[in-house]
């Protein structure tokens, strides 16, 4: 059982968490082309390496972001969504 460190609750068994998908920016639905929109919804990069993912700590319904190496399955760091937005200039959606 892996450990995932929740920014609010600290290190916990990963069974307490729900995976929320890879973090990816949402194109503006008003201006995106059909192709851009369907690509956002249904196509994944399948990056092998470091990715950012949404995770939910289920007992507290707390969303946060983890940076994970999906080759070694190492969780490199976890952060609040705000920290992530600050780093990326506020872009996820």
């Amino acid at each position, binding site marked *: *059982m*892996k*450990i995932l460190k929740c920014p609010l609750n600290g290190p916990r*068994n990963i069974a307490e968490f*729900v995976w*929320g998908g890879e973090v990816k920016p949402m194109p503006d*639905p*008003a201006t*995106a082309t*059909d192709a851009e*929109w*369907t690509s956002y*919804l*249904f196509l994944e990069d399948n990056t092998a390496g470091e990715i950012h993912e*949404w995770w*939910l700590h289920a007992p507290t*319904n707390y*969303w946060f972001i983890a940076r994970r190496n999906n080759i070694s*399955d190492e969780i490199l760091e976890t952060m609040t*969504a705000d920290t992530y937005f600050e780093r990326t200039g506020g872009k*996820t*959606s």
Partner: protein
Amino acid sequence: MSAHNDRRLDGPAWGLLADHTKPLTFTFDGKLFNGFAGDTIASALYAGGQTILSRSFKYHRPRGVLTMAGHEANCFVQVAEEPNVRADRYTLSNGIAVLSLNHFGSLKYDLFSVIGAFSRFLPVGFYYKTFYRPRGAWKYFEKPIRYMAGIGKLEPDAQHKYYDKSYLFADVLVVGGGPAGLQAAIASAECGADTLLIDEWPALGGSLLYGRSLGSRADTDKTRLELIAKARALPNLTIMTDTAVTGLFSDNWASAISCQRLYKIRSKHTIIASGAFDQPLVFSNNDRPGIMFADAAQRLMRLYGVKPGTRAVIATSNRFGYETALDLLDAGIEIAAIADLNATPSGSAFEALKARGVRIMAGCTLADSKGNRHVESVAVAKITGEGTASSVRDWLSCDLVVMSVGYTPALNLASHAGAKVVYDPAISMHRTENMPQGIVLTGSAAGIWNSDTVSSAAKAAGADAATRVQGLSVDTSPAPVTDPEAAAITHPYPIFTGKGTKDFVDFDEDLKTRDIINTVKDGYDDIQLVKRYSTAGLGSSQGRHTNLNTIRIVAKQTGKTLAQVGTTTFRPPLVAEKFAHMAGRAFEPVRLTSMHGRHIELGAQMMTAGQWMRPAYYGTKTDPARAIAAEVRTVREGAGIIDVSTLGGLDIRGPDAAAFIDRMYTWAYEKQPIGRARYTLMTDMSGVVMDDGVACRLHERHYYVTATTSAVDQVYRAMTWFNVHWKMDVDVANVTAAYSAVNLAGPMARDIVQKLKTDIDFSKEAFPYMGVRVGHLAGIPVRVLRVGFVGEAGYEIHCPSGFGEALWDKLMEVGKPMGLKPFGVEAQRILRLEKGHIIVGQDTDGLTHPAEAGMEWALAKKKSFYVGKRSIEMQMTKGMTRKLVGFAVVGSGVPTPKDCHLIIRDGEITGRITSVVQSPTLGKAIGLAFVPPGMSEVGTKFQIRVDGGLMADAEVVATPFYDPDNKRQEL
């Protein structure tokens, strides 16, 4: 009663675990045997002269004690209804009935043992090769083969036993309580770490319990007692014996089994001091009862006080064989000879035995054995080269053969955790590379054999672990320890085979040298394929005594080095886990509404709805349809009450509440008046219908939104996820459990509710359809919604759940004289379907978009954004491939259709039913179905394939089926 037995050893040096003052009796295959408290089944049987424990898997050869550590399948017996009990590990209790396994007829005269004579018809890989021709032959062969090869008997009537699970926590976990593990655990605890020491034996000490690692037996025992005393005195050292660690996983997560409990252990650092497994000498007929590992003979004597024989031959290549010989002499056992595989024996134990005049045959191996159900003599032969021996044999009579030709370190747990296992030719043993962080090996598992080095390395490992887990600075890790003595432990090729002989490499699976050679010849020369094709190491030993010799044979056959051959990966569990352990005590939360007790008292038949229990209907099980129809009529004609507490509820509060709901749901809410409810439809980003309910505006900044029972958690998660992005000034709270609710429905509903003391004006004019009021009813704080899921005038009354039962009581009290009756989920299903209301998740699926479900009216056209808007627009442009329509069955004589029955047109499947009921109100079967758009016009006829392949005629009907002008709910 006299406990004397000439196979028993008396005196304090013998039988550490068996209490000779506490005799027990038990039966083996119905025959009475004596034993002592602390004995195992195998030790007591051995003492009683019963040295055959089982018949082997394939050839039904008699087998006895090999490891005395439960490391292979030949020790399996059945105890009452429990199959596959390890006789050499199972502690005796008085009166148990033990049965032997895997024989036909008696254990002594197994009728299947003649199979041995036909063994050429059971070649390696025989499952793959034989019985598959002619085609279909397997079905005739399978049953007898499974019967012959089966181990253990499942007892279908076995009593259910209580198994459970528990977590355990430690800073440092030490696996193995031998000399290394004890030292490591003591050092770790002394350095302040919260330490957990686990050992699979009933007593701590490992090889200190039976061996001579500190020179003499007395010194070894003294050290053991000192270490144990030291360990027990440390308050931060928890010791668990009789507990087997079965697996090691990521982030220092280990599983362990103790009796009927599975432990899940979380540590910060793991020290594996799991020792090493004795390895067999491969020679013809090396499996006869009486032939055993050196440590098995030592355990029989030292742990249980049982003489393993009267006259012994020892085959060895290391000090352990000689040390065992000294033990045998101490026990009064004659030694016929010691065959040393080395040409020039050395060491203090060797010198001692030489001095005592024991015959030592240097440069010799065992080549064959004879015996009828027990070894009676062995042949000693001169070694002529790697794996070869002279054909000149010296037959020595004996009733005990002791093997000590090498060890393989127990690297299983390290391998589970991700370490790489590699062969080290310098020591003729495996070791690990790339150990995961926070896991170290010590002791013989780490290739350390010298007792001083074991002690110093283990202490260093324990201290280092303790320092790290306490976050204290660690400059350097302890330097890797190499022990020169390790090279003298394991013989590089203890395999002496002859043509057509029964020289066993794998005692579980009955595999001989020839089987491994043939595997390679059949083309399976990769070690992974060798394992799977030959089944070597697949038995309960899990390769403990099989892997190394298999790799040696494969290397020899392929001309590769052992390092090049590699090894197979060890998989958990290391020790058998029962399904019962894994199932444990199941935790399945059950949610009950505050009115649950009342439903039971009223004779409700309960059904599950997700985690919730809900009344299906009220009445006996004898005629549900009649009871349900009566409930429907009560609602249509008088008044009914249903517990809808399971409905999801969300409080959405804050300045942005309306704007937030506008973004989450498809319809428009910003202009919704306070005191009104409005239908809600939620779609996901791909436009698929997720949920529906109503949004009640209680205040400019407060909405109370209902959600379906099964979807509320998803809805709440989605809302909070979106607001992490949107950062709107709004708070979302899931208040499902905080509120109980009833739906009071029917023409009499208003009259009933008005009988109660209230500050809400329930008059038709003051409280119209889709109105919402907050106030009190019979002194209970309530939120009342005039919504009409069942299509009659009615009120959904929500209250804090602590008041739920009282609300039910008050309504029933005033309603009873007016004919109020409870109704259940089944009646509600009919009532809502009569009104044509959909249930999201039943009448929609994972692809349904709103237009398909006839929900275009709930899509706000002017809003610039809502979740799913973009996708829904694309879907609307693309057009529909199916549509949800109402239908009614016409005609009679065929069974009523059921949910998911298929719609057939011209022999093709064109759609399916999502909901269907026999409507008591309309007197016919009605339902909802997905059909192609071309079949969705009212009046279109189609056929439904119902039970028994019969076809029912149906036609598309406009919905609502009942009260199409919606007059009744607005009364």
